[in-house]
């Protein structure tokens, strides 16, 4: 059976051209970039070339790019690093409620260290309103955090307006762009952000490498101390092949992003139109202002895990909510933040298209999905509403549940 991969938001395959670029750095050009001699300097030059490419993709300068081991580390470094370095200016942080766990957990860590964190509401589409941000900023606020696009529902935030609000109040702005970088155009200059997190494996680069854009003048406390690599912000021998791969992925994205976004948007809109023909189905996230490859649905009266397995039996890989969140059995915090009830949030399906997705892939999903949803609905006791449950049912056996 042909595999239909529709989970590009979880991770992407490494583009062949990226693998090609990486290969020599495993077995031939294996020098340590920190070594003075030419063999080490060759590796160093490759790292710097990659840095320039990653910088160019987001219109930054090379010195503003810090390589990390991935998006999660980049988010942790941005948030903890900024807060710890700037705590003398204030200890209040504002963050949207729909961030990735890497961001939210870093914020919770800061709360344990005595910082105060305000969590910002979003509207039904997942958009943060500039006035919500403005209202949350206090005199001791040092950092505002809002994702560039949401990894579950794909909604793209009005970062430029939001960053402007922060800037007016003298508050630094961090945006997690792991899911959107390479898919849609990001220009840090135009957006006005101070920190921006990126991840290679979400844009056809390898896993284990990411980067943080740190605008000139923005000061951070490092998380790893040691050899002083990455302008002393991130010690450790550089992952040379990984960095080279990220650079190549950025170069390809720069060239192909625009056409690819148009193709995927069209494919996605066709998909959404067809899936919404399934009764009692809603689209999560903004209908237009969303990532080109992202579609997220809630099917009433069924549960997402069974749906994923059913699709998997048919050779289709998709996801329900954030991959990291599924083993906790908690409904997606993003879906509840945009107003879904817990029961509705359990029935979510995220379909994400990418560079190697074809019209056939979408057709295959459309062929299988209605049948699968119907089968699971046949099994479900709920046919028209969740109301039936409320009357005369004893609450039992839900100890895993923290509702």
């Amino acid at each position, binding site marked *: 059976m042909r595999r239909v991969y529709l989970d590009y938001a979880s991770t992407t395959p*490494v583009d062949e051209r990226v693998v090609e670029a990486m290969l020599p750095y495993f077995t031939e050009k294996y020098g340590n970039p920190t070594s003075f001699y030419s063999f080490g300097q060759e590796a160093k030059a490759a790292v710097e070339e990659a840095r320039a490419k990653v910088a160019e993709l987001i219109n930054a300068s090379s010195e503003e790019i810090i390589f990390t081991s991935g998006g999660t580390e980049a988010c942790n470094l941005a948030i903890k690093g900024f807060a710890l370095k700037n705590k003398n200016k204030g200890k209040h942080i504002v963050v949207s409620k729909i961030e990735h766990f890497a961001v939210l957990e870093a914020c919770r860590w800061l709360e344990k260290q005595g910082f105060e964190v305000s969590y910002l509401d979003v509207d039904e589409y997942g958009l943060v309103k500039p006035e919500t941000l403005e209202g949350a900023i206090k005199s001791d606020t040092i950092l505002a955090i809002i994702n560039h696009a949401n990894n579950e529902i794909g909604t793209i935030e009005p970062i430029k307006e939001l960053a402007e609000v922060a800037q007016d109040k003298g508050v630094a702005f961090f945006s997690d762009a792991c899911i959107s970088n390479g898919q849609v155009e990001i220009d840090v200059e135009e957006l006005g952000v101070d920190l921006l997190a990126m991840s290679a494996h979400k844009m056809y680069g390898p896993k284990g490498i990411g980067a943080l854009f740190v605008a000139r003048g923005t000061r951070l406390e490092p998380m*790893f101390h040691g050899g002083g690599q990455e302008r002393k912000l991130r010690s450790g021998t550089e992952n040379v092949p990984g960095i080279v791969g990220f650079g190549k992925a950025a170069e390809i994205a720069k060239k192909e992003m625009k056409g690819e976004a148009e193709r995927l948007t069209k494919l996605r809109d066709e998909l959404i139109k067809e899936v919404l023909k399934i009764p009692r189905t809603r689209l999560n996230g903004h209908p237009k202002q969303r990532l080109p490859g992202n579609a997220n649905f809630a099917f009433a009266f069924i549960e997402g895990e069974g749906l994923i397995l059913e699709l998997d039996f048919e050779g289709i890989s998709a996801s329900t909510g954030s991959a990291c969140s599924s083993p906790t059995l908690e409904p997606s915090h993003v879906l509840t933040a945009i107003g879904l009830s817990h029961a509705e949030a359990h029935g979510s399906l995220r379909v994400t298209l990418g560079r190697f997705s074809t019209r056939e892939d979408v057709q295959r999903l459309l062929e299988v999905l209605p049948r699968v949803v119907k089968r699971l609905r046949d099994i479900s006791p709920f046919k028209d509403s969740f109301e039936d449950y409320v009357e005369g049912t004893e609450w039992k056996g839900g100890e895993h549940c923290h509702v």
Partner: protein
Amino acid sequence: MGRNSVIQARRMIYADYTSSTPVLQEVKQEMLPYFDEFYANPSNLHDFALKARRAVEGAREKVAQLLGASSEEIIFTSGGAEANNLAIKGVIQANKARGRHVVVSAVEHYSIMHPLQSLAREGVQFTRVGVDEHGRVNVEELEKAIRDDTILISVQHANHEVGTLQPIKEIAEIAEERGITFHCDGVSAAGAVPAKVEELGVDIYTLSAHRFYGPKGVGALYLARGVRLLPLIEGGIQERGYRAGTENVAGIVGMGKAAELAEREMSQRLEKLRTLRSRFIEALHREVPEAKINGHPSEVNPMYVHVSVPGVEGEAVVAELSSRGIYITSGSPCMARAAKASHVLAAMGLSQELIRGAMLFSFGIPTSEADVARVAQEAGEVINRLRER
């Protein structure tokens, strides 16, 4: 065909295996499918993710075997520096209530010393224990340095500059007696010399894949059951909550393969390197009789040949050899960048002259006897010429 081709025909010789090693072909082959074939995110539910998850768990098993540990005790990180930072900061954060004092040797790597220096601003105290002329930690002094509020002892397995192996078992016994967590930075030892955690008696042990023919960008921490540690990177349940972030599947697979090969081939590799080491020292002494070999004569990772020559600049020798296509280093690579005098050599009591005249030759699996002979001969030539000036 001019002079250039003659120069090019002189193959470059890499003699800096302690800075980084090439990824072995077998390791690379094992990694390749995980880039564009089995690329799923191991955290996912679908069946496609199972392949990636199994690959990660298989690699964990292999790394565990190298250490004689069980696989639940292995946490993958982005490298040795992260693993060392996680060990130091993680143990200190988790044990704040019990005390804030740490005992380390005076010859630890920067990825141990710098986190401590940064934590010192928040009230963490640490005592540095001296070493003898071979760079071996003074165990009696270490025992005396322990206080009631000591929560962590951290001593490297092999020294990163001179290769001296530390008396880990003795230190572990003391740590156990006093009920103190013992971390051992094994970056310069693991995969090269035997490192069975049970035998060593350590609670936490650091490894780096690119130091034993695995890829850069991946390392691991052995964390014995029951040892408390708080994570540095949060935001996911990967690595049992000790280290969030999508797993570097290909890198981890590479580390697993490198660990498997290291375990299988360790005695042959050691024998070869011991032979190369003594051949090199003999040959170098023929050229430069006054070259002093630093580090312990027998308790040493045989990849290392650390040499001091009075009357020359180590840096100059490195540069000159580099122009001849021979790559060595004058110290640890991080130190090279920091351009500071080595705290390791100073702690060993070397004179300023010998510190200035220090250089490190290191050999590996691809090194041949002919390579070693050529390195010794050309190094001798370079050293003697520089001293004539």
